[in-house]
C-alpha cells in the first residue's frame, strides 16, 4: 500500500538530507533516522526517510534467494 523507494544519502542538513535515487536527487526529512551518514541508504516514503537499508541483510537475502533458486530438487 505504500510506495517507498531506497535512495543514497549524499548530503546532510538539519533534519533533512539530499537523497540520490539514481540520477534523481531530492531533499527529504530524516527525523526518523538515527545517526544518518553520507553513503547510507534509506527507504523514502511520502517525503520522509522511514528506515535505513541494511547492506549486510540485503546481501544475505540475495544469497538465500540465489542458492534456493539453484538448488537441485
Amino acid at each position: 500500500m505504500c510506495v517507498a523507494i531506497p535512495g543514497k544519502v549524499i548530503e546532510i542538513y538539519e533534519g533533512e538530507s539530499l537523497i540520490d535515487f539514481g540520477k534523481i536527487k531530492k531533499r527529504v526529512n530524516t527525523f526518523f533516522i538515527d545517526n544518518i551518514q553520507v553513503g547510507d541508504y534509506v527507504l523514502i516514503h511520502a517525503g520522509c526517510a522511514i528506515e535505513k537499508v541494511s547492506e549486510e541483510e540485503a546481501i544475505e537475502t540475495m544469497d538465500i534467494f540465489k542458492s534456493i533458486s539453484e538448488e537441485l530438487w
Partner: protein
Amino acid sequence: MKYIDEFRNVDITQKLIEKINEKFQGENNNKFINIMEVCGTHTMSIYKNGIDKLLPKNINLLSGPGCPVCVTDISYIDTAIDLSKNINNIICTFSDMIRVPGSKSTLEKERSKGGNIINIYSPLDCIDIASKNKDKEVIFLGIGFETTIPVVGLTIKKAFNYEISNFSVYSSFKTMPKVMEKIILDENININGFICPGHVGSIIGNQPFHKLAKDYNLPMVMSGFEHMDIVYAIYRLCEMIENKEFKCENEYKRIVKEEGNKKTLNLMKEVFEISSSNWRGLGTIENTGLKINSKYINFDTKHKFNLKEKKTQISSQCLCAEILKGIKKPKDCKLFKTKCSPKNPMGACMVSREGTCANFYKYE
C-alpha cells in the same frame, strides 16, 4: 537503483517460479493453496509482472484489504467533498484519492467546479501551504496505514511546534494486524498463508505478524516488493504450509527489523491513540484505527469543525466487500467492465491503482 535492481533478477525469479511449479502443482484440482497479500503495492507488483499467470493453477493469490483508498468508507469521501465546497478551505490530498467515488461526486469533479483541491506528494508540504495561505484553512486528507501515519504525525507535531493554526488533518488511518485477524476468523474465507506487508513491517516490525501467525497457526512471510521477493515469499509459504511451520518468516530483513522503527512508533504514540475504524466491506473493527489524541486535538478536522459524518449506502451490486476479503474475484462482479471501469469507477477497488479490480482491468 540499488536494492531494487538486484531483486529484479529475471533469471533467479524464473528459476524460483519453476521450482514452485515443480514442487507444488496440484493434480486433479486437489491441493489448493490460498495465499493472501494485504498490501496494494504487492497487488500491483504481482499483476504488473504477471506473477499470477506463471504460478500453477492450484495456487490462488488473493488480495486482501491492503489498499487504504479501497477500504476508506464512502461517507469519508462525501465529507471530504463537502469540505472542499467551502471557499475558505484548501484540501490537500494524495493523488490516490482524487478519483475515488463518493455517493455523488469525486474530488476531481469538485476541482473542475472550482474546489480548491491540491495534489501533494508529502503531508509535510501542507506546512508550507498553510504558511503561505494564512487566510485559508488547510485540510489534509489523512488516509493510509502505518507506513504513512508517522509522516502525518510528524507533520502535526511540526505544525504544533510552529504554532500553525490554519492546518488540520481529516483522518481515517487504519492499522494492519488486527484486520488480518478479522479475516482469519471469517469462516467464509480460507487462507492458508499470508504475504505480509513489508513497508508496514518497516514501521511496526515483524513481531506483530509473527504473534498472529503463532496464535492462529498460519504461515506468513514478510516480503519486499520486487518480483524476486514476492515469488520467494510464495515459494516459502508453500513449503511452510506443507511443513506446518507457523511463524512469520522475515524475508525483508534489509528493511524490516523484528521490533520495527522505534522512532516512528514513539512518534505515533505521541500524536495518536488507538481507536476503532470503519472498513469498507468489513464494517467497524475495534482497535484497527488511529485518531489524533487530546494533546494535538486542535489539528483534528473533525474536532475543529465539529463534523458529523454521514452514513451512506453503496450499490448492492458492487462486490468490493467480498473482493477485499478475497472471497470473490473481479470477474465475479456483474459491474466489472460493464458499468464499472477506471474511467467510471463504481467502487474504490476500481479507482485506486492498487485496487484489485483496477489491476485486473489494466493488466488482465
